[in-house]
């Protein structure tokens, strides 16, 4: 064997010199909890696609505040029930024809006037109305988030932290509110205030935060007994400071997940109320009123139901998928 002939001097074996610092060095950067969650979220394709769809919908809603293909509330009785038409492109369903008849020619619509998704029974442009309706749904989403964060988190933390009689009373109040079906509360509110955005907001303010408050209370009760809270208390931190500095950061994953689950419920509420005719008053377009109008004309103009339906389903789907993704990312134990 050739190898055995190699002579190695004892000098070749020196202890490697490694400093204590280097030994302790961690090769990959330490991930914080949030970074780790975001890394997990990025692996979930459905959630990421949903996120970008939502970004797109938000962007379109903001842009269409300034530019809109037509005025969403302008009525033109010469243009009623025009099917969708995309310029001069001859694509089925988008060529302005219904039952083989060119409705645009029949109604003497001047050349160059197109309605990308058609018009409703008052000749209003469906696409522009869908933009307005989507924007309202998103406003509702933002408002519901706000109440979830302010009332829900606040209520839960106070109830869990104070304990004793305060907790008992606060829990009884929650039990009473939640023993009335949400929609009944919402409808009663709508009766007291006039139908419109304000009453929907009040209704959401009353009902949407219940689940959040319950979850936050349960978690606060658990956190309360942990050593770091005890340490903070012993050091004389005020309850407020403990709540903001120690409780909220530890509750953040619950807060994020639950908020994402509240949003689709709130969007559904608004659409539902407008659908049964006690939500936003005419002529404001909301996805609910559009769906109601569409359902009335379903047998002759199915597109009036189909397009708003697609928008609301995509919106709900995107929020639900993103919520699922966030839950898996922030709370990996829960699903696998």
């Amino acid at each position, binding site marked *: 064997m050739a190898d055995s002939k190699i002579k190695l001097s004892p000098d070749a074996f020196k202890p490697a010199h490694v400093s204590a610092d280097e030994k302790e060095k961690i090769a990959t950067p330490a991930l914080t909890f949030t970074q780790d969650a975001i890394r997990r979220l990025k692996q979930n394709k459905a959630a990421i696609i949903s996120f970008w769809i939502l970004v797109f919908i938000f962007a379109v809603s903001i842009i269409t505040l300034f530019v809109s293909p037509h005025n969403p509330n302008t009525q033109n009785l010469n243009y009623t029930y025009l099917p969708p038409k995309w310029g001069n492109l001859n694509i089925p369903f988008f060529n302005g024809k219904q039952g083989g008849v060119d409705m645009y020619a029949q109604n003497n619509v001047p050349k160059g006037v197109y309605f990308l998704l058609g018009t409703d029974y008052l000749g209003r442009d469906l696409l522009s109305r869908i933009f307005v309706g989507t924007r309202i749904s998103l406003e509702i989403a933002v408002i519901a988030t706000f109440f979830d964060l302010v009332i829900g988190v606040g209520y839960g933390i106070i109830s869990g932290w104070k304990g004793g009689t305060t907790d008992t009373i606060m829990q009884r109040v929650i*039990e*009473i509110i939640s*023993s*009335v*079906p*949400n*929609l*009944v509360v919402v*409808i*009663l509110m*709508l*009766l*007291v205030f*006039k139908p419109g955005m304000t009453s929907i907001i009040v209704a959401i303010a009353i009902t949407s935060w219940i689940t959040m408050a319950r979850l936050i209370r349960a978690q606060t009760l658990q956190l309360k007994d942990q050593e770091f809270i005890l340490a903070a208390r012993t050091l004389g931190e005020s309850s407020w400071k403990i709540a903001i500095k120690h409780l909220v950061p530890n509750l953040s994953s619950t807060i994020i997940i639950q908020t994402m689950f509240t949003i*689709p419920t709130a969007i*559904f509420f608004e*659409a*539902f109320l407008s*659908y*049964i*005719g*006690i939500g936003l008053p005419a002529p404001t377009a909301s996805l609910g009123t559009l*769906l109601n109008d*569409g*359902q009335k004309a*379903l*047998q002759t103009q*199915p597109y009036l*139901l189909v397009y708003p*339906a697609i928008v*609301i*389903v995509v919106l*709900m*789907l995107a929020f*639900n*998928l993103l919520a*699922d993704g966030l839950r898996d990312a922030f709370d990996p134990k*829960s*699903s*696998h």
Partner: protein
Amino acid sequence: MVKYVLKRIGFLILTLFLVASITFFLMKLLPGTPFNNPKIPADQIAQLKAQYGLDKPVWQQYLVYILGVAHGDFGTSYQFTGQTVSYLISSRVGPSLQLGAQAMVVGTLLGILLGAVAAIRKNTWVDSVATIFAIIGRSIPNFVFAALLQYFVAYKWGLAPVALWEDGFSSSVLPTLALAMAPLANTARFMRTEMVDVLSSDYIELARSKGDSKWQVVARHALRNSMIPIVTIIGPMAVDLMVGSMVVENIFAIPGIGEQFVKSITTNDYPVIMGLTVMYCFMLTVVILIVDILYGFIDPRIRLSGEAN
């Protein structure tokens, strides 16, 4: 146990009392009156008000109302002259209960099936399809789903009656499906999570090492144990069904209490709104109470752990 049930029933009565009171005073805050037609002369309005007891001071009206509610008397409807609210509700509760029960059975059974299959075939295409189906079911508003069912299945393909409650069971098929969608999606999601948990537990390992086939393990051990927590979502499911019934009954023109509720709101028929609100709360609280009691019976571990504490 008896003490617990009595305590819960006491709390249930308190809740209903509060709900009835709050509803009453909210109704009194309302701007409109049911007799605000300008064509009715003032003396006739006064007469109508006297007839319905609306000329008395509010506290007297309240006492009369609360005492009536305690006896199951919710007053008289403004909308249908001379009909008592109790009669109106009891004559309409049948179709709603039938629909609700059918939807609950269909929803939970299919949901359990879907969730179980997804869990057994975890991380395969079967799982993906089931999960996508459940998420879509959660995302389609029930009124959209109902309208689409009505258009395609009933109108286009003529497979079921388009609306109304006249052909017995066949007219309940589409509304049931529309209502069952939400419970189905929720049960499936819940079932999958539970089943995945159960399938990785020790007693399943034991059953496998004993030599049971995969299907024996599922049928004898996994399915039963993962179905226990499903009981807890019956409460929220009941809410879903009540809410859903309002639109679904409307779309399919079914004479149920959901349709009545929506109709009463648009006509300011306060006694009916108050009566139905209390009714909905009563049904919901009773369902939740039954579920809580049942839960202890179904799963002895919960009772045991309760006693140990």
